[in-house]
């Protein structure tokens, strides 16, 4: 199964490394969606890394809802390292969902601002 090419993989030593600000910065820079893929719950080498990540993803989603970007644009998945096809399936699922939701309001607003600036300069 092929994975979509419209997303970028950022490797972490453990999903427990991810922080809310990492997720928010991605959206601030114009990402349309983000998903975190951690190990199966209960299988974390560091015991709680994927549980911590889930909490942070939930908090980031809440903030994105509050600022009008949309909390549904961020999601946490769990799978084992041997589940390549499932990774591809999740990727397709997420990419389709984001396509359905359309571009992030942050990206659209940034583009609009850039156009206005260009027009004013000209």
């Amino acid at each position, binding site marked *: 199964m092929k994975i979509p090419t419209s997303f970028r993989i950022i490797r972490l030593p453990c999903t427990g490394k991810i922080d809310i600000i990492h997720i928010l910065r991605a959206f*601030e820079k114009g990402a349309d969606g983000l998903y975190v893929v951690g190990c199966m719950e209960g299988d974390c080498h560091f015991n709680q890394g994927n549980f911590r990540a889930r909490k942070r993803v939930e908090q980031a989603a809440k903030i994105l809802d509050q600022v*009008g970007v949309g909390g549904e644009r961020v999601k946490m998945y769990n799978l084992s390292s041997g589940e390549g096809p499932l990774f591809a399936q999740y990727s397709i699922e997420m990419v389709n969902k984001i396509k359905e939701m359309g571009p992030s*309001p*942050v990206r659209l607003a940034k583009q609009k601002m850039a156009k206005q600036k260009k027009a004013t300069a000209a």
Partner: protein
Amino acid sequence: MIIAEKKPIEEIIEEVRNFDRILILGCNECVTVCEAGGKKEVEVLASALRMYFITQGQEKTISEHTLERQCDHEYLEEIRKDIDNYDAIVSLACGVGVQFAAEKYLTMPLLPGVNTVCLGANEDRGLWTERCQACGSCVLARTGGICPVSRCAKRVLNGPCGGSTNGKCELGPDTDCAWQLIIDRLKALDRMDDYEKVAPIKDWSTDRAGGPRTVTREDVNI
């Protein structure tokens, strides 16, 4: 330490709406430990505000800075050189820090980004509970190290009231009866004789009843 809670982002958005250049100012002390106003929270709030205002088509400059402490002149001086670059400061410090910064920068609007809750301890991950009300005359020596002023809703000083049931307060099953805790501890210390001693009337003038409090120490005043 001082326990604070983050204010809802919506409330902060409304407070800063009319300013264009905003500084989010964190504090490295108590509010960092209780995860309400440290460097991380500053970053998250600044990012959230930036995204909100961008989507509203408003260009605002939202900067971030975290001081070692906001309740000390020396550290607050750090931002003096840049203060003219801002129209308002959102301080994520406790009420003390917000007020101290406001006193220092007289013409700068200072907006609180957290609600200061109490003096407490981190009992468990994500759980902070009150332990002290700064009443100004500590009775812990007599009460086995458990404070009836902060942990008893009625602040009674000579044993439990009639609302104590099965070790719980009449406020609800989640609140321990402070006097039950005191008695249990005095028993463990084999000091139940102390429990029988009637406490003198407490001098509440050292509490808020005497108005804002001041500590003056000539020995450290150089």
